[in-house]
């Protein structure tokens, strides 16, 4: 019972932090969907089906936080690559500060 509760809690954290994590990965540099998924897996584990990244990226595009363009790599097929806009970087910066503060406060509560 406790294991299930812990798993459920973990799933919820991972889901809710996904938008910030995607912004953070894009903050390191432009990426295509699969590249994003790989980077996110290293941080969050395989928390959600990777297809769910696309509605999120679509929303970022719509809200002007990211732009997408098809790029042709040195090898392999053309890929749709996402990059943060100036607005996206501003949101990432603000959200990072909020997250840090929340994490600090929660840490105090948990210690």
């Amino acid at each position: 019972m406790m294991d299930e509760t812990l798993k459920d809690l973990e799933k919820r954290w991972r889901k809710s932090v996904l938008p910030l994590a995607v912004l953070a990965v894009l903050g390191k540099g432009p990426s295509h969907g699969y590249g994003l998924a790989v980077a996110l897996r290293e941080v969050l584990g395989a928390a959600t089906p990777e297809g769910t990244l696309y509605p999120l990226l679509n929303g970022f595009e719509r809200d002007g936080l990211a732009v997408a363009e098809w790029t042709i790599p040195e090898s392999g097929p053309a890929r749709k690559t996402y990059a943060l806009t100036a607005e996206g970087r501003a949101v990432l910066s603000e959200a990072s500060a909020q997250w840090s503060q929340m994490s600090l406060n929660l840490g105090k509560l948990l210690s």
Partner: protein
Amino acid sequence: MTTWTDLADPGARAAFAAYFARVERHLAPLPDASAREVREELELHALDLLAEEGRADAALARLGAPEDFLPDLVAERLRLRASKSFAPSHVFSAIASSARTGLAGIIVSTLAGFGYALAALAVVMGIARLVAAETTGLFRLQDGRLFLGLGENLGGSDVLGVWFAPLAFAVAACLYLILTLAFGRVKFRKPPGEDKANMTG
């Protein structure tokens, strides 16, 4: 290899064919170019996962069921298209698509549908006024109450006169524009991976 149709393993090809047939069904309401863009992006992602996993079923499970993530994406794109084009057919597609994205989508689509019905009623009243001015308009009854008549006049005096039809058309146009702009910008995205999504980690 750039497409799943090039896969050598017939089992993997069949699994991809079945998966992308489901993807196609969900993308059908989108314009061709938009649907192709989403499909190609998913195909490349699925092929990358296949290279990593080695098995088609595992790769496609990692990508997730199209039913779990495509309706939101499609509905959002259709709403955005409607808010840019203002074409009634686009608005109708956006409402129909949004209504299939869960409870929030049903509520927002119902409210939008009600608003558009009011706009349509205003147009009907404007036209009716032009063909039957005596029985359509805003009338003040003898007891002072206002009565909005459509094909019916309870004996009141006409309040707006010749201005009724232009005002009805203006109300309809404003309602349509405001609703379409608002509907195109509304967000009712579920948290990623919610509902039926299988957790793979």
